[in-house]
């Protein structure tokens, strides 16, 4: 019996191949479009996160507890080896790099500019950020560097008027109040699309920055790269737990000695506006679902209604010879479900296939942007989006289609089951 119902439903759909094909095609387009969009959004967001975090930020940052209120050169801490070890062993963590960061003046005899001095441990930094990849001219810092090397943001170098091979004077107020200064060699220029780096930053080896700031072995920041971008919050939580009991002796803003802990922030905490935008994009996709499925629903409903109306007489006869209204309801309902599932399958193949293609070769948004890269919220974005296909992104449109299909099938199925067989056979309404 079950196979008979299936056979009836399938053959009825094949009876009007043109109409069924068109409806299934419509469903396929809707499902495929949503799958493709999901993969696009996933890829685009990942790219935004990467653009935000990869260049310099990292996915998680650790600072002294009082650093966030007001960044100051004296709010440093010693990255003790056993503390570093306990951080390094956190699950999902890829690398951790210590940094020193303060403001000073950089320039030549002719021109100088307020500059953010960023001290990095050359070896570890390579694993955490993409600063080394952003070299536009010259070279990146080497572990063998003697400590007099500096890499400048592109706009900063242009403004001061220095280039690779030139000398640069750096002056900064050290944490003890003394004035540190040094003469550095410009070895490289970076261009990142990140305004903070391009316009304001001079990157020097960690030791050099610690010397300029009279920081000894202390640093301001530990930047962490996680294995996957979506692990940021989990890693931040674990690190937070591990550092929870640690306190350092410090001098407060008021000059009184006090104990401070550590602040651990994921990129979501560090750039909340970016996180908000991502969350908003992800939730607003539902509006898109509703619009697309409303259109698809009209198509399904129309097809199934027409095909049920055309068969009133046939359904009357079938009920007259003993098919129960419930079974007839099942047949008509099944037709809609089969049609929708078939359409959904086509949609999965088409949308999934195209998404996989765009995951491998990228999707060129050049049609929307005039440059190959563009800046969004100060973050450099490539116009080439690499899609990310997730099981959820593929299944969600299919699962969301099911209730739509069932709702659309309900009306034709109910009206077929409830028709008056005598009138239907006689051709009366």
């Amino acid at each position, binding site marked *: *019996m079950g196979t*008979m119902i299936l056979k*009836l439903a399938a*053959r*009825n759909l*094949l*009876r009007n191949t043109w109409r069924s094909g068109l409806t299934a095609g419509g469903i396929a387009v809707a499902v495929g479009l949503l799958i493709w969009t999901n993969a696009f959004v996933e890829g685009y967001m990942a790219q935004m996160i990467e653009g935000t975090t990869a260049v310099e930020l990292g996915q998680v940052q650790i600072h002294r507890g009082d650093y966030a209120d007001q960044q100051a050169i004296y709010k440093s801490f010693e990255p003790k080896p056993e503390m570093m070890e306990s951080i390094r062993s956190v699950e999902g963590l890829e690398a951790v790099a210590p940094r020193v960061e303060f403001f000073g003046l950089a320039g030549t005899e002719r021109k100088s500019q307020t500059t953010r001095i960023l001290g990095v441990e050359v070896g570890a930094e390579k694993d955490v950020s993409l600063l080394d990849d952003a070299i536009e001219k010259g070279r990146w810092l080497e572990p063998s560097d003697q400590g007099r090397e500096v890499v400048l943001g592109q706009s900063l170098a242009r403004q001061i008027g220095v280039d690779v091979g030139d000398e640069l004077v750096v002056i900064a107020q050290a944490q003890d109040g003394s004035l540190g200064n040094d003469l550095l060699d410009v070895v490289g220029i970076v261009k990142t699309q990140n305004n903070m780096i391009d316009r304001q930053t001079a990157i020097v080896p960690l030791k050099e920055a610690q010397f300029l700031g009279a920081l000894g072995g202390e640093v301001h920041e530990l930047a962490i790269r996680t294995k996957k971008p979506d692990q940021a919050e989990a890693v931040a939580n674990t690190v937070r737990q591990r550092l929870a009991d640690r306190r350092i002796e410090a001098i407060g803003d008021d000059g009184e000695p006090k104990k401070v802990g550590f602040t651990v922030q994921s990129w979501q905490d560090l750039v909340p506006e970016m996180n908000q935008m991502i969350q908003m994009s992800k939730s607003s996709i539902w509006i898109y679902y509703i619009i697309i499925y409303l259109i698809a629903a009209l198509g399904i409903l129309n097809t199934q209604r027409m095909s049920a109306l055309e068969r009133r*007489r*046939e359904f009357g*006869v*079938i*009920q*007259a*010879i*003993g*098919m*129960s*209204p*419930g*079974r007839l309801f099942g047949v008509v309902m099944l037709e809609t479900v089969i049609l929708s599932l078939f359409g959904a399958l086509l949609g999965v193949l088409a949308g999934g296939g195209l998404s996989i293609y765009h995951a491998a070769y990228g999707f060129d948004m050049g049609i929307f942007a005039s440059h190959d890269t563009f800046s969004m919220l100060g973050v450099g974005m490539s116009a080439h989006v690499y899609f990310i296909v997730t099981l959820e992104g593929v299944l969600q449109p299919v699962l969301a289609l099911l209730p739509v299909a069932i709702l659309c099938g309900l009306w034709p199925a109910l009206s077929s089951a409830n028709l008056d*067989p*005598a009138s239907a*056979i*006689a051709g009366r309404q």
Partner: protein
Amino acid sequence: MSLIEVSGVERTYRQGEVEVHALRGVDVTVEGGEFSALAGPSGSGKTTLLNMIGGLDSPTAGTVDVNGSRISDMDRSKAADYRLHHIGFIFQAYNLVPVLSAYENAEFVMMLQGVPKAERRERVVPMLREVGLEGMIDRKPSELSGGQQQRVAIVRALASRPKLILADEPTANLDSETSADLLDLMLELNQEYGTTFLFSSHDELVLERARRVVRLRSGQIESDQRDSDEQVA
């Protein structure tokens, strides 16, 4: 007890303000094994009466019992189930499910009944052969003539061995020769299986073959004649 007992049946249809009295007090009984016809001019109530007996329609007044069950009181699902197991139906035309083959149409009722596949085949194939459809069992209804389609409908109605087969103008769309052949076939099956046939027609050639003719006029029984032309009711 008679197989069919119709007593005091009235059926009034409402069409807006107008009331149509399709049946106005019909009493008739049919015994098991009869081969009887309902005759009467168009609009006299033949279809309405057959629908009442088959539980496709309910009387405004009166009762209908089939095989001891009060079909006139059953709800839609119950009546459908009752038809499935006790009554075969044949209609004027387009009886068959277009997407199913002659064979699949013929086994349809038994399939609804849940008769196993092998048994269905065992019953349907010889019957299709008997009605002259050998070699056509895989054809779709659209590939069969009107007469051939009606034969499939007869097999479908008969294969599940119901007590009663109701046929509303089964020959209306056929030429007279084909009609006569079909009637002969029905009569043969009536005798072979003992199935009761009640069919309607206005074709005198067809009515000739009935053992009993109940004539309706304006929703009332005008006459009830048995074989030998003697008045019964």
